[in-house]
């Protein structure tokens, strides 16, 4: 495992209290006026040059949002969000004249990426990852597009897909997460600014990992990404989403919607490393991350697999889910959620079994340190039609120190007596004797914790694509630095 060796290296390099990505770059922004109203929705649609049908879709979503209540059942504690106190659109100014290649991109933006350690050029050459970079709300660089388009693969900003592929958008957007699902889904539908669109045609195996880096940059800008991935029959795609954010004091609201659709025999693997600014050691600042991710296994033998490493944000509220409609379809959820200091995470999954012989697997590892709280909340629902459905769930929680909390809230609703549902859960404190053993071999307290926690998460981390696994292992260690052993 060469990867976790880097963990240690990285841990050594970084100071314990500094958030590596804590800076903001002063790229001039075009902004919508502060606040949330119909005018803002129209402004966003206009900025994007959207067709009338899209504006109508947004306005309908906005009226639904106004009628819905904010979900309040998550085990989270935060001041009420004042939706009027955010900006809902901002775009780097230099985007106005659409760069055709990386050379044309604002050097200021490129410098920002450099600081983040994401050299686009190098990534193109070295890793074979096609990168669709989102800085704030507008995608600024798309690579490998041509190569992919030769295979009939569409990988572009969703704003572009609205222009170029309206039929696909009309057919699939909102088909997995209905606008009326809950208030954040409705909000996102009304004001989403950009995100990614992926379409894999029949019988195509996407040859590269598709990747998007998100970044929150302009002050107090709510971020509302929208991602839609469609895998047609017999196709395969692996999609990576990773992000870092600049340090600032204001709480930042983020409410992304991600929809996945897998048709007959198709497979979608969706991996996330989330490292947004978690707030400082006293719990000040940090991102509010309310994400709705849902995949529909519509076809027979289809498969959707979510892997997530959640280390950042002040508040994470996220339940990547699978709707297993097609017979023999499979859903998987592998999750590591780390909370330190005053972070709060309420995360888990929903597996909805509808088709026959559907199966799902849930592996969740929650790590809590400092004063943080970490909740796994999961639903396994077996509908009467889901003959011979199977689920296996394992939730392990690890506590570091005495002030943090871990909770496991599994809901099982089975309406088919033939279903097999297995649930295992453990909660343990980090083992002092293990720590002592590692330290006796010369590892520092932080290194020892990093090593042990990475071991604890291995089952999940090994599902990440290689280049992501390295970063994830670093993040696991970095996020627990300075936590009491």
């Amino acid at each position, binding site marked *: *495992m*060469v990867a976790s060796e880097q963990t240690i290296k990285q841990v050594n390099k970084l100071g314990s209290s500094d958030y590596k990505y804590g800076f903001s770059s002063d790229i001039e922004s075009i902004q919508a006026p502060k606040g949330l109203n119909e005018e803002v929705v129209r402004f966003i649609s206009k900025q994007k040059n959207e067709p009338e049908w899209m504006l109508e879709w947004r306005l309908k979503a906005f009226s639904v949002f106004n009628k819905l209540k904010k979900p309040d059942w998550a085990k989270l504690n935060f001041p009420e969000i004042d939706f009027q106190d955010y900006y809902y659109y901002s775009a780097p100014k230099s985007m106005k004249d659409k760069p055709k290649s990386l050379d044309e991109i604002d050097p200021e933006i490129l410098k920002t990426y450099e600081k983040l350690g994401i050299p686009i050029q190098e990534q193109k050459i070295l890793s074979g990852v096609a990168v669709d970079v989102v800085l704030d709300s507008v995608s600024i660089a798309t690579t490998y597009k041509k190569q992919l388009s030769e295979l009939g693969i569409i990988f572009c900003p969703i704003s572009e897909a609205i222009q170029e592929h309206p039929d696909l958008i009309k057919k699939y957007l909102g088909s997995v997460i209905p606008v009326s699902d809950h208030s954040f889904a409705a909000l996102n539908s009304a004001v989403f600014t950009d995100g990614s669109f992926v379409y894999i045609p029949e019988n195509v195996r996407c040859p590269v990992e598709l990747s998007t880096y998100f970044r929150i940059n302009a002050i107090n800008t709510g971020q509302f990404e929208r991602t839609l991935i469609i895998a047609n029959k017999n196709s395969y795609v692996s999609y990576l989403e990773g992000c870092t954010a600049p340090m600032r004091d204001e709480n930042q609201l983020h409410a992304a919607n991600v929809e996945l659709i897998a048709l007959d025999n198709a497979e979608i693997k969706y991996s996330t490393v989330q490292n947004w600014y978690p707030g400082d050691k006293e719990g000040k600042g940090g991102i509010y991350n309310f994400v709705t991710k849902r995949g529909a296994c519509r076809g027979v033998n289809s498969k959707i697999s979510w892997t997530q490493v959640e280390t950042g944000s002040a508040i994470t509220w996220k339940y990547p889910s699978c709707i297993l409609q097609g017979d023999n379809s499979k859903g998987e959820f592998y999750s590591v959620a780390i909370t330190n200091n005053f972070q709060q995470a309420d995360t888990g999954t929903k597996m909805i079994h509808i088709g026959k012989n559907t199966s799902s697997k849930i592996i969740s590892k929650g790590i809590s340190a400092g004063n943080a709280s970490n909740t796994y909340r999961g639903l396994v629902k077996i509908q009467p039609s889901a003959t011979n459905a199977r689920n296996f769930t394992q939730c392990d929680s690890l506590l570091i120190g005495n002030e943090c909390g871990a909770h496991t809230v599994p809901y099982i609703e089975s309406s088919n007596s033939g279903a097999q549902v297995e649930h295992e859960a453990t909660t343990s404190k980090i083992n002092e004797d293990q720590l002592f*053993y590692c330290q*006796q*071999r*010369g590892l*520092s307290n932080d290194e020892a914790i990093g090593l042990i926690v*990475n071991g604890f*998460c*291995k089952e999940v981390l090994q599902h990440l694509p290689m280049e992501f696994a390295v970063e994830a292992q670093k993040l696991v260690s970095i996020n627990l630095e300075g936590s009491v052993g």
Partner: protein
Amino acid sequence: MLNINNLKASIGDKDILKGVSLSINKGEVHALMGPNGSGKSTLAYVLSGKDKYEVNEGTVDFKGKNLLNMNVEERANNGLFLAFQYPMEIPGVQTSFFLRTAINAKRKFNNLPELDALEFAKLLKLKAQELNINSDMLKRDLNVDYSGGEKKKQEILQLSMLNPDLAILDETDSGLDIDALRIVSEGVNKARNKENSFLVITHYQRLLNYIKPDFVHIIADGKIVKSGDYSLALELEDQGYEKMAKA
């Protein structure tokens, strides 16, 4: 190398070490024997800095430095190694990776460049072969589902990879079969040189046939009650602790 003077230590309100004094010079092997519960492991833990023990009195000098002022990893990186009586399992962490992490932690401490993957693999292969440890074992998670004897062998592999100045072996021989005992002892003898020292805790004189100690100490109720040369171990084997303590 090591100078322990009137060391007293307790856990909670229970006194365990009640004034231990012991000097170990470079190149020497000392054996420590004593009945169950007499404080042997406690001495090993206190020397390596386990924090649940309270040191109430006494001094410990290690290579000219005050050992008791250092934290656990400083002691380790300064060359103190403890082969645990009960080695810990670390799930999800490959044995070879753990070894590499440990070696590089020590190298970093000594301002040496990290061993690259190839150099490390070569060294590991050599040392593992000497101890008759097969390479599949090294791919498994550290100590997880290892048999008792395999865990002990693993400790000695770590010892020979880390090359400490002072190694404390806490009952490394218990749990080893006859062949393994011989192989492990050979490993220890190979690691032995004029510059390093060993403190070997054991219940059995048999081990000392393989690893010839320069001195033998008997500890009872938190104190060293008798010291001598190798013949003391033979005497002990013959008479048992009770008689010896009275004598």
